[in-house]
């Protein structure tokens, strides 16, 4: 197997106030992968990426980027790394072109090489026309794209994006997805992203790790994770409003509003049985869809399970004499 793009072993981070943000996590991301790191707020996603990018100091553990141990030669490892942080971190008063050219300069890229690269990236991301304007004049979505262009200036083999589409409208989000897919597919760039939009992770990523309370609770492929999904909730839009909730043998049914039903479907159950039961009762279905994105349902279940386990463990510890 090829050297992983990112390998993390026993990564621990304890902040000055004693908070254990990371509790010895292990993680491998293979070259060429499109990988999602998911978790609720405060789970340790950004801390993990912060340590990988050298913005946060680790307390213990090892990190290798394309086989380069960051404790031995972080400078060389950084050449392979492009970072798009969660918050805007450029000088808002600088020109767009100056921001990307300066970043290339920090990596030692000569201007003769940096200029055409900047032209291409800003062009691809729809920012070339804005190059001579101050960055603060850009819209939120444009600022996010500027950070992507900046991160790609030195041709990194591993691109890390911390919630890249937060606050971005749907159309722009889709175009950013397409761009990220393209560089992953055509240029072989390994991509790791954190996101709160699980639809984003399901749509883009091949593999996923779920982190909660500073521990990786699952690390598998998106496909494998979805096959483990036991229950899905389907919404049925009806032709006419109902006065009472219909009974469907073997299914849990709730009335969302007059003309909409929510039906829990367990693995092995058939949707045809629902349609048949509704048909027998003279109820006409106009359309049907998942209540939530499937990965989201899985994620919520796992995180709730993890929180419940933690609460039980805490209660047990407290009850101990």
């Amino acid at each position: 197997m090829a050297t992983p793009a990112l390998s993390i072993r026993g990564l621990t981070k304890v902040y000055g106030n004693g908070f254990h943000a990371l509790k010895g996590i292990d993680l491998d991301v293979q070259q060429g992968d499109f990988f999602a790191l998911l978790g609720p707020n405060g789970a340790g996603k950004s801390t993990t990426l912060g340590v990988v990018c050298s913005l946060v100091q680790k307390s213990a553990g090892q990190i290798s980027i394309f086989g380069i141990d960051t404790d031995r030669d972080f400078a060389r490892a950084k050449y392979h790394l492009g970072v798009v942080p969660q918050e805007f971190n450029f000088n808002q008063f600088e020109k767009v072109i100056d921001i990307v050219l300066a970043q290339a300069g920090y990596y030692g890229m000569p201007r003769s090489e940096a200029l055409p690269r900047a032209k291409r990236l800003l062009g691809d991301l729809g920012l070339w026309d804005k190059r001579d304007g101050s960055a603060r004049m850009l819209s939120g979505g444009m600022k996010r794209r500027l950070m992507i262009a900046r991160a790609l200036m030195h041709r990194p083999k591993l691109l890390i994006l911390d919630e890249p589409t937060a606050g971005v409208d749907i159309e722009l989000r889709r175009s950013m997805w397409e761009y990220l897919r393209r560089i992953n597919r055509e240029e072989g760039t390994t991509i790791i992203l954190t996101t709160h939009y699980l639809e984003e992770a399901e749509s883009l990523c091949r593999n996923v790790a779920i982190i909660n309370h500073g521990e990786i609770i699952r690390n598998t492929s998106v496909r494998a994770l979805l096959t483990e999904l036991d229950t899905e909730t389907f919404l049925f839009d009806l032709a006419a409003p109902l006065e009472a909730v219909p009974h469907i043998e073997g299914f849990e049914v709730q009335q969302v509003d007059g003309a909409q039903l929510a039906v829990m479907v367990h693995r092995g159950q058939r949707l045809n049985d629902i349609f048949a039961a509704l048909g027998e009762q003279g109820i006409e279905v106009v359309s049907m869809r998942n209540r939530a994105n499937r990965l989201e349902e899985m994620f919520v279940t796992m995180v709730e399970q993890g929180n419940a386990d933690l609460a039980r463990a805490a209660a047990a510890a407290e009850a101990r004499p």
Partner: protein
Amino acid sequence: MSPTQIAIALWTLVHKEIKRFTRIWPQTLLPPSITMTMYFIIFGNLIGSRIGDMDGFSYMDFIVPGLIMMAVITNSYSNVASSFFSNKFQRSIEEMMVSPMPNWVILTGFVLGGMARGLGVGLIVTIVSLFFTRISMAHPILTIVVVVLTSALFSIGGFINALLADKFDDISIVPTFILTPLTYLGGVFYSISMLPALWQGVSMLNPILYMVNVFRYGFLGVSDIPVVWALSAIVAFIVVLFGIALWMLEHGKGIRS
């Protein structure tokens, strides 16, 4: 990084810093020019003409080197302090931290940027002074060496201040309450030989006195204190403060959680 890549990274940072303070020239270059012109008019011309000679020179000739040095010190310091803290505040310092640029290049880049502004303002003040007096330099090479070293020293000081600062107030405390009083008491406007023995001794503890005096020696050929001492003190301060600043960067003090 190869030496060529380091040179490119360093130039990128210095160029960016120069571009920053020239872009906002009404805040960075114009005010010191106006302030110093006021000093020349009020202290040099109006009051100075009644004071008479100082150490054998006209009062205007005596204060010119001190005022140039004062401008260099305050501008070198405040340029790095405000620029680096602004990078911290806007988090654009992360652009440099995620890059392979060594810490000494980051430090040197900001220091050179501060020196560019400090020496630039020093040059402007020198040109302004030509409207009031004729400048002659007794020791031109020494003058240049001293002003460059002093500018470097206070640029490093500004860098450390910015590393330690958590809010904008923190970068104005040192210039307002330490740097300015020390500069005024550093023999810019008077010779310490005018002071009683006790205060002469106290003045000798002020590092800025050495810089102003050795700089004045470069212009006029007279100094209150031995030139070799002064030069040695400046170089020693530079080495120590550069070491401290680099250590702080390496350990992420003030920039990494």
